[in-house]
């Protein structure tokens, strides 16, 4: 039986994991298999994990403001490794004006503060590529 596999990752030094953990739990409650990386992940670590775990979705969570560098690092590396069938989404404290650049780099959707977790679940179920 096919299950959606999601990687929830916290890139960089940001230690705020309340949201990432809540999302991970909600995705689990929606029947998905969620690999949670824990804190302080480099782009290499995130992408290698995504490869080994053969995930359908990579979810990046960041509240420290470093998303333009770190999210894009991950998206670029995933592309390099030809992981084109992986859906990339992000969340955290990300100003609206940064979203277009993130989308251009390959992050399909950004879920800001106040997003109901069900929206994220629905989005993933609808947009998973495989």
């Amino acid at each position, binding site marked *: 039986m096919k299950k959606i596999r999601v990687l929830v990752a916290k890139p960089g*030094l940001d230690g705020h994991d*309340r949201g990432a953990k*809540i999302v*991970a739990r*909600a995705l689990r409650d929606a029947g998905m298999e969620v690999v949670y990386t*824990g804190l302080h992940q480099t782009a290499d670590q995130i992408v290698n994990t995504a490869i080994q775990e053969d995930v359908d979705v990579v979810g990046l969570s960041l509240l420290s403001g470093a998303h333009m560098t770190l999210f894009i690092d991950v998206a670029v590396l995933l592309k390099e490794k030809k992981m084109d069938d992986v859906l990339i989404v992000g969340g955290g404290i990300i100003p609206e004006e940064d979203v277009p650049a993130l989308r251009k780099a390959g992050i399909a959707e950004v879920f800001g503060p*106040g997003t109901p977790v069900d929206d994220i679940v629905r989005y993933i179920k609808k947009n998973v590529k495989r």
Partner: protein
Amino acid sequence: MDEKETISQIHQKQREWEKQRYSKAIQENPERKQKFKNLSEMEIKNIYTPEDIKDLKYLKDIGFPGEYPFLRGVHPNLYRGRLWTMRQFAGFGSAEETNKRYHYLLEHGETGLSVAFDYPTLYGYDTDHPLARGEFGKCGVAISSLVDMELLFHGIPLDKITTSMTINGPAAIIWAMYIANAENQGISKEKIGGTIQNDILKEYIAQKSYIFPPEPSMRLIVDTFEYGYKNVPKWNTISISGYHIREAGSTAVQELAFTLGDGIEYVKAAMNRGLMIDDFAPRLSFFFNAHNDFFEEIAKYRAARRIWAKEMKGLGAKKPRSLWMRFHTQTAGCTLTAQQPEINIVRVTMQALAAVLGGTQSLHTNSMDEALALPSEKAVRIALRTQQIIAEESGVTSTVDPLGGAYYVEWLTEKMEEETYKYFDKVQRLGGVIPAIEKGFFQREIAESAYRYQKETDENQRIIVGVNRYTLDEKPSIPILKMDEKGEERQIHRLQKLRKDRDNPKVQRHLQQLRKAATGDENLMPFILDCIHSYATLGETCDVLREVFGEYKEQAIY
């Protein structure tokens, strides 16, 4: 007046009132909710009367401000004598930029400084460390060496203003930089005042900016207590925090219980080292959240004061100051919305008022744009004005503990104390705070509360204005803070120049001495100060300690 008779009369009358008036009223206006609960899941009644607090004795349980059990406050005339310190947490980009913001805030009436550091600094990495990639100055100011500290406080009289620094893992080192900078300016250690957060236990539990494992971290903290009371007497060497525990999703009771529990743990650790409680306890301070449920927060602060006084007395403290729970408050960041950001001003106002009615010594009010970015000048000015309006225009400062005696508030204060002691027992049975952390107890409690809060919000059981009701389709259009793009480059240049120009053999010597001392049990502060005075960087100093102490890795708790 026969008290007992009065209570039973009230009880009697209430039954009648419930039958006659209340039951009619709820038929005409049925209750909007099945249960009215506060944020600690306590059910709140329709009305509170003297019967709800019938066992309270004013002199024993409530008392006067400035006297045990300090329920009504630690200062007899509180804001009538001196307003709380208006201390806005600030920091971004490079030291020069943040220095400008500090001058701005001081011009606009803040009365104390508060430093926010960026992530690399919080973790003890210099700006040019590979792990610092993309993080320079994003959520605070980057401080890699004494040079940066000098720039940060340029033009600010450190003998006339106090500074709070939110730093934990490398707290001792950043403190050393502050002290060294003051000394270089000709201001002696005895004259400087301020606070370092330096509360590692809550890092493992909630904020996660730890570096070393628990034992060596506790050793460093006790080193700072000792160094502090002996050499820097006006300094609060710890700010035992509940703010972050709350932000991670805990309830108000959990915030109260876990914070005070951590505090007791620090006191015991210091006493185990042989320090006398009355020597260091007067310089312990606290840091609480000001969240949404207005009266719950006020009751929380009051209960905190009484519980702390009781516990410290129980541990043998004799000096009155050792029993004082003095605290800083910050309004709850996690309640701010990205939607319709202007209305955050209203949230912050109510939260700030709760803190003032709770008797806070120092206050930070969040800016309206903080769910989007770091505060712009205008937003932080409005946040400051919020405090000033409460102070000058609302009249709440005219009397101490204005809600004392309110049946609801006194009942709630008792309840919060009761629930706190239940948590104390639980943690005790798990073997104490550090074993409980290792078993993931606090982390699990917090994750459960956080998840429940989210579910209630998503199911519209909890209304957040602008998010799940009274929404607006337009995108927020307020100006977002822009940082100087050249800041990182400048900082790296500065670092490279520093490493070239300083007396490197001296630096190495002092680092070596620190390394040796760290393996023993001498107080490390003098060694750290030597390193800093010779311009060793934050990263270099922390690396020595990382070598000796190791690094902490957390477990997975959802």
